[in-house]
């Protein structure tokens, strides 16, 4: 079929509209019953506890690499003692939130898209609606709540593990003073840095859940369609996380001046 820019633009606008409506419904459902508390706890466990190992490992080794790389550069200026400051600022403001978002996205966006997509192609979503249950209320809202809450805490854990990894490398390999490392790490952080680091996972969590569910709900074309939806969901979610990270960083610099 011949490519038409008009049709492409129309499809894009329709998709954005559909996605926005899904987001609005998922959030509005929080305010009205029925609420699926048990499903929310299941998702909190699956998304939060289930993602813990990858988040801990990613955070720890990112901190290790940061310390190694930072020490090499800082040594040239005789500022190797500032390694803790660099690791801490990088982890809390940027790498902790973004890498945690990307790791959780890779694990959970794909899971949500494939699970809901499989239900869609096997008519289970229609069956759910026929049985009087709103799939958005039952499947999407608990995932949005759980991902936003858990990504917030997972990011804090990743930040802590990153600092821990940086400290381990600094003390074990670079022979730096542990107390100095931790002190510079701590004093480097300002209120705005912490706020910036904790606001980002709220947006990322929302993106992960809504994009995963959106692609799952619009799946067509059998098992191949499920695979396609899963891939599209992970790609879209990852790109959106980085895009929103940029926008939030801009906003925070505007608010806090750093």
């Amino acid at each position: 079929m011949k490519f038409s820019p008009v049709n492409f633009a129309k499809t894009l606008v329709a998709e954005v509209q559909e996605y926005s409506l899904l987001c609005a419904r998922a959030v509005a459902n929080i305010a009205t019953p029925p609420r699926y508390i048990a499903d929310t706890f299941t998702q909190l466990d699956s998304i939060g506890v289930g993602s813990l190992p990858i988040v801990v490992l990613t955070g720890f080794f990112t901190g290790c690499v940061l310390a190694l790389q930072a020490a090499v550069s800082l040594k040239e200026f005789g500022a190797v003692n500032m390694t803790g400051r660099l690791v801490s600022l990088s982890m809390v403001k940027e790498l902790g939130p973004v890498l945690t978002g990307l790791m959780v996205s890779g694990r959970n966006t794909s899971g949500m898209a494939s699970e809901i997509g499989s239900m869609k192609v096997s008519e289970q979503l229609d069956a759910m609606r026929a049985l009087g249950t709103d799939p958005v209320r039952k499947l999407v809202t608990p995932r949005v709540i759980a991902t936003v809450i858990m990504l917030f805490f997972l990011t804090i854990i990743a930040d802590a593990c990153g600092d821990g990894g940086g400290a381990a490398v600094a003390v074990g390999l670079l022979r730096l003073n542990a107390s100095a490392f931790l002190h510079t790490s701590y004093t480097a952080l300002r209120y705005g840095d912490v706020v910036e680091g904790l606001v980002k996972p709220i947006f990322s969590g929302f993106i992960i859940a809504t994009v995963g569910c959106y692609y799952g709900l619009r799946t067509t074309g059998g098992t191949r369609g499920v695979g396609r939806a899963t891939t599209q969901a992970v790609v879209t979610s990852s790109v959106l996380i980085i895009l929103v990270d940029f926008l939030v960083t801009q906003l925070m610099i505007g608010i806090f001046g750093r």
Partner: protein
Amino acid sequence: MIEAIDDREAAQRIAQGVPIVEFEGVDLGFEGHPVLKDISFRVAHGETRIILGPAGGGKSVLMKLANGLILPDNGDVRILGWSLQAMSQRELFAMRAHIGMVFQESALFDSLSVEDNVGYRLQEEHVAPAEIHTRVLEALRFVELDKSIDKFPSELSGGMRRRVSIARAIITQPALILYDSPTGGLDPITSTTIIELVAKQRDVSRTTSLMITHRLQDAFTLATHRWNVQAGKMEPIPDHGLDPNTKFLVLNEGRVVFDGTTLELTHTTDPWLKAYLE
């Protein structure tokens, strides 16, 4: 905004003789292609309406319209007198509590056990677990699958899944049951078992139903047989009798080409219909 959809109001409307299903001038199309054109028919309380027609004639779409899963482009779909188009999403979900649906491919929740599948709606209504278990067993006994209560859908055969789907549809004793090709893809013996269950539900509970089928023999079995409660089996109606509450609707290319009784259908003079039945 319509009035509250509750069991008492629904029962009152049934007692007043309000048709359970009413389609009036319904049109529906997808991406500019008409699928249903000017569909009008009524299904009274206690009636079993068998929907026949060639594949792609809009039968499954009509079923989804009756459940509010799709809304028409034009015309009106009324269930128990309530217009589906006038309802909000929340009201539609409440309305569906009065409708049971058996899907073509069963559409059981594959991550839930048979017990949780059948008791799904009761769990949604926060019924006590002990009562759910009792009612699930009762529904599974009706479809003779009470021994499979702990199994998962993947462990069941196609026919068993279809029977679990029927149990799930009848557990709340809905005012209307929609069977979307319940015998599709099944062998003749299993199909007969499913048709027996449909006849049993029709004759024991007097539930109104719409049933799509591609197998004419299933349709005519339903019209010519009844459920014998004493013997616990389906038997032919004596003297070549016909079930008065079983009627037919035939669709072709999105239009109603026949709406009437079994006798009227078998004595039709319409050439297309005669060819289709032969």
